[in-house]
């Protein structure tokens, strides 16, 4: 019941709100209220899943195997809660600042509906449908602002990601051809019997599609233009919520459905992740612009997630889930803080900066710690050194930004302070990041359960 409601609520209200004038305050607040309600429903669902194990619904009353399966396990609900939380923060931020186009609240709700669907579906093609729902909403959101920079950003984002979507679709067709099913659970079961050459091709297609979403090196080329061009709230949505599709997809399809192919490519994934990490960090240090530094930082940060997936096992996957969550919160906080001025903002930004660099007590420290543990498990000194270098570089570039923005008397950084509610909201997000760092047990335990759930669903080949 709660499961169905959590999927339907944002979708239905989103369709209604798109038709209304979102620039009106009450429509904006209604969208925020619906997002809050969705978050509450997902929180209840998470509690149920943690207590009683994963839930499954077969749509339309069809027998299992014919109808589309919706499946809520720990991994899915964690990502759903996280993404809706990010959307809630970004939407509240924009409603407080004043929405500029009429479709904004409706689009955010549709995006929430699409993302929840992605994380709670148990069917590969259904995944594609929700995926396009979420992506179409985010293509439209990228144009938010309507200036030249936003239009250019939207064009690049749409063209590149549409291509990624079609590569995903090609792989879906391949999956059906080689396994004769589209239910994720059955695909995972039948995969070991599939011709290895065909399997690796299909897996590579999925990997490319999700890497494009995530902005991993060398599929990152679109990311800096888009993140710098779009408005801060939209950049927060793209990096905090939409990028989760990529991280979740890699986790769900990699260890969840193609474990043998993942093991085969593990070394390549670690190398790619490490390249992404170093490339992102070095370019972020070299950039002067706040938006661009954060964009390259995003490329570097997802490198950590890929390294963790490459390492694999319970330790690696726990680190990957945890780091994805922490990274989404960090990026949301930073992009929101960059857009506003006044007291409290510098403090909130500093918390985000410390979290990216992995300095306690911010949440980033816990994420980095898990990554180091993963590095030690594989017994690779080079990997641990690389992680340290990446963290050191992120400390350098984050404080370059901090210095440039909050210490220098630069005319562009000056101006009237933003309204108090806006600053309080940013401070609240900063508090969440701090709280997750000071009391990391819940997040750690949930990530651990998610990794276990992911590994438990895989038949041992």
């Amino acid at each position, binding site marked *: 019941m709660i499961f169905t409601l959590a999927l339907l609520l944002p979708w239905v209200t989103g369709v209604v709100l798109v038709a209304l004038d979102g620039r009106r305050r009450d429509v904006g607040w209604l969208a925020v209220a619906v997002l809050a309600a969705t978050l509450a429903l997902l929180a209840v669902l998470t509690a149920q899943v943690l207590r009683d194990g994963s839930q499954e619904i077969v749509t339309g009353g069809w027998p299992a195997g014919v109808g589309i399966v919706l499946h809520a396990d720990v991994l899915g609900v964690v990502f759903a809660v996280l993404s809706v939380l990010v959307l809630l923060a970004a939407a509240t931020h924009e409603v407080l600042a004043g929405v500029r186009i009429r479709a904004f609240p409706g689009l955010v709700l549709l995006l929430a509906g699409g993302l929840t669907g992605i994380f709670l579906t148990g069917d590969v*093609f259904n995944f*594609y*449908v929700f995926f*396009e729902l979420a*992506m*179409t909403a985010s*293509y*439209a959101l990228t*144009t938010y602002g309507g200036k*030249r*920079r936003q*239009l*250019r950003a*939207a*064009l690049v984002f*749409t*063209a590149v990601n*549409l*291509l990624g*979507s*079609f590569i995903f*679709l*090609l792989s*879906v*067709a*391949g999956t*059906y*051809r080689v396994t*004769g099913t*589209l239910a994720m659970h059955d695909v995972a079961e039948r995969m070991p019997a599939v011709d290895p050459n065909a399997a690796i091709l299909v897996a590579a297609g999925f990997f490319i599609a999700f890497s494009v979403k995530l902005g991993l090196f060398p599929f990152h080329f679109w990311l800096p*233009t888009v993140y*710098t061009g779009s408005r801060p709230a939209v950049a927060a949505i793209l990096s905090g919520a939409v990028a989760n599709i990529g991280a979740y997809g890699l986790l769900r399809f990699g260890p969840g459905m193609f474990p043998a192919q993942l093991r085969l490519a593990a070394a390549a994934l670690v190398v790619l992740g490490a390249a992404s990490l170093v490339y992102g960090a070095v370019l972020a240090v070299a*950039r*002067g*612009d706040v938006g*661009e530094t954060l964009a390259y930082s995003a490329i570097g940060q997802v490198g950590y997630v890929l390294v963790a997936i490459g390492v694999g096992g319970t330790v690696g996957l726990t680190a990957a889930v945890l780091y994805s969550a922490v990274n989404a919160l960090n990026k949301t906080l930073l992009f929101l803080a960059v857009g506003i001025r006044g007291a409290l903002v510098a403090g909130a930004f500093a918390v985000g900066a410390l979290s990216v660099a992995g300095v306690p007590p911010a949440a980033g420290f816990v994420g980095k710690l898990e990554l180091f543990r993963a590095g030690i498990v594989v017994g690779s000194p080079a990997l641990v050194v690389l992680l340290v270098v990446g963290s050191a570089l992120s400390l350098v570039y984050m404080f370059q930004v901090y210095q440039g923005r909050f210490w220098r008397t630069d005319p562009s950084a000056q101006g009237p302070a933003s309204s108090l509610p806006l600053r309080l909201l940013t401070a609240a997000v900063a508090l969440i990041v701090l709280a997750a760092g000071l009391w990391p047990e819940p997040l750690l335990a949930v990530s651990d359960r998610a990794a276990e759930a992911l590994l438990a669903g895989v038949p041992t080949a």
Partner: protein
Amino acid sequence: MILAFALAAAVLFGCGAYMLLKRDLLRVVGGIMLISQSAMVTIIGSSQSRGRAPIGVQPGDVVSDPLPQALALTALVIGLATVALLLALVHRVIVVFRTSEVDELAAGEAEHEAALEAQRQADREEAS
């Protein structure tokens, strides 16, 4: 039959990729559309069985696999919607920038780059 599907998909994808690399935005959209059609052909080609349409079948009839056809229909509708969105976006870009050439769009990027460089120069002067 599979070979024909594979060849059709490959040719469509190749033409799409070629057009995608052109400098004119409308050609880029055309390229993406061709690639989407290549995905449709692949979906239809992934059918598990071939035969007559699965409508009013008698027991023992060989029917074609209905699932890929349902998938292709759904994917076509989604593809139509996204391509319409992309075309609207390109139209907006052409109206605002008064050009459909990618090069001229990139000029804006170069301006941003130059502004950043000027800022860095100012920083250096302040430091020295």
